């Protein structure tokens, strides 16, 4: 059976999802405060890395990267409720792209698997 990443459509699917996902993140008042001051292009590149990972694609993120990358945000109050919101927006993005519910769940599981690293605990 094809892997999750192949079923979703690989890099092309990531490219299709990244703008929709990032737009949702920036419009959502629960989380957009964390993205206010960042360079949009650099941020979009990071979102692409994140989506590739949760789509089950090739990536070399380590738990340490996740911790270091979010430490400053945790200091600014990043907590479970924000991770929940991101997982929800991720699901809404995939739904918009016509992805099956079972695959969406698998993506959510992958996102949740890095939750403790992201929240530095």
């Amino acid at each position, binding site marked *: 059976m094809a892997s999750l990443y192949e079923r979703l459509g690989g890099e092309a699917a990531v490219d299709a999802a*990244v*703008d929709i996902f*990032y*737009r949702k993140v*920036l*419009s959502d008042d629960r989380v957009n405060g964390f993205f206010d001051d960042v360079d*949009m*292009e*650099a941020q*979009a590149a990071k979102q692409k890395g994140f989506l590739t990972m949760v789509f089950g694609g090739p990536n070399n993120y380590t738990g340490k990267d996740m911790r270091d990358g979010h430490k400053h945000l945790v200091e600014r109050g990043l907590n479970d409720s924000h991770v929940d919101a991101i997982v929800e927006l991720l699901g809404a993005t995939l739904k918009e792209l016509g992805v099956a519910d079972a695959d969406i769940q698998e993506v959510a599981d992958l996102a949740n698997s890095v939750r403790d690293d992201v929240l530095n605990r």
Partner: protein
Amino acid sequence: MAQLKYKDSIYPVTTGSSVLETLLEHGQAIPNNCRAGACHSCLMQATSGNVPDAAQKGLKDSHKARDFFLACVCKPEEDMEVCLPDIEQLKFPAKVSQITKLSNDVVELKIKTQQPVDYFAGQFVTLWRDDELGRNYSLASLPGVDDELIFHIRLIPNGQFTSWVANELKVGDEIFVQEPVGDCFYTQGNPEQNLLLIGTGTGLAPLFGIFRDAIQSGHSGEIHLFHGGLNPSGLYLHDMLSAFAEQHSNFYYHPCVLKAEEGMAKNIVEGDLSKIVSQLIDKPAGWKSYLCGDPEIVKKLRKQIFMAGSNMNDIYSDPFVYT
């Protein structure tokens, strides 16, 4: 901690610091200006060690291949040895052929190089007064049509470079040009796509080349040019662009000012530029956008256009970053 070797000395790079910061901290003189990866003043070359991708964004392939990088956005992950490239190799002389006042504070500078220069309309160069003082200026000229390189330069009170242009530079003088760079230019292959061009002040310069390039290439989609000025006199090509719009059915010129004046031309709209844009172009999905000029306005418009549905990859920008 990564180590940085430069001119026979070795410096430790604190995590998160750039090559530029590290060298400046240790008293090394490295040319620099915007410190944001935009102006290319701090171009350096790695003689050993890996260059992080982020430090080569926007560089030409031929430069990437020679391990050139921008020191201000290069945060070494491993040991590197670096040097200043022989910048003289990248510069060529030109002669001033014309200086014309376009408004109270904008001059048009035309310069002629001995050999033809390879560039895309909308790219920018560094103009050098001498070995020490160089600044970025966007090309307003169109290769193949304009014989000269043309710039629109806004005079900044007490500005080092622009005061020299205003007070000392004369026709016939020599000036040095460092090769054109940047990715804000027209690309062929999608003639039906609508184009949104927005510039504040002399941010009009690159757009002036870009839309002429599009029209010359037979672009059939709509081309909307918004030019924002503080007041009507800031719309320094108003009459020419209004006439151009009359002659080209797919070209629309939208002059905008923050402060209206009595008796100003009827086609000028008063108000906040980003609001005027969002009212007229409310669905930029599928459009290609070019945003040039004031960095804050460019940033705001970029977000606005993205949020209104445009792909990130379809938004090009040239913020005129200054320090």
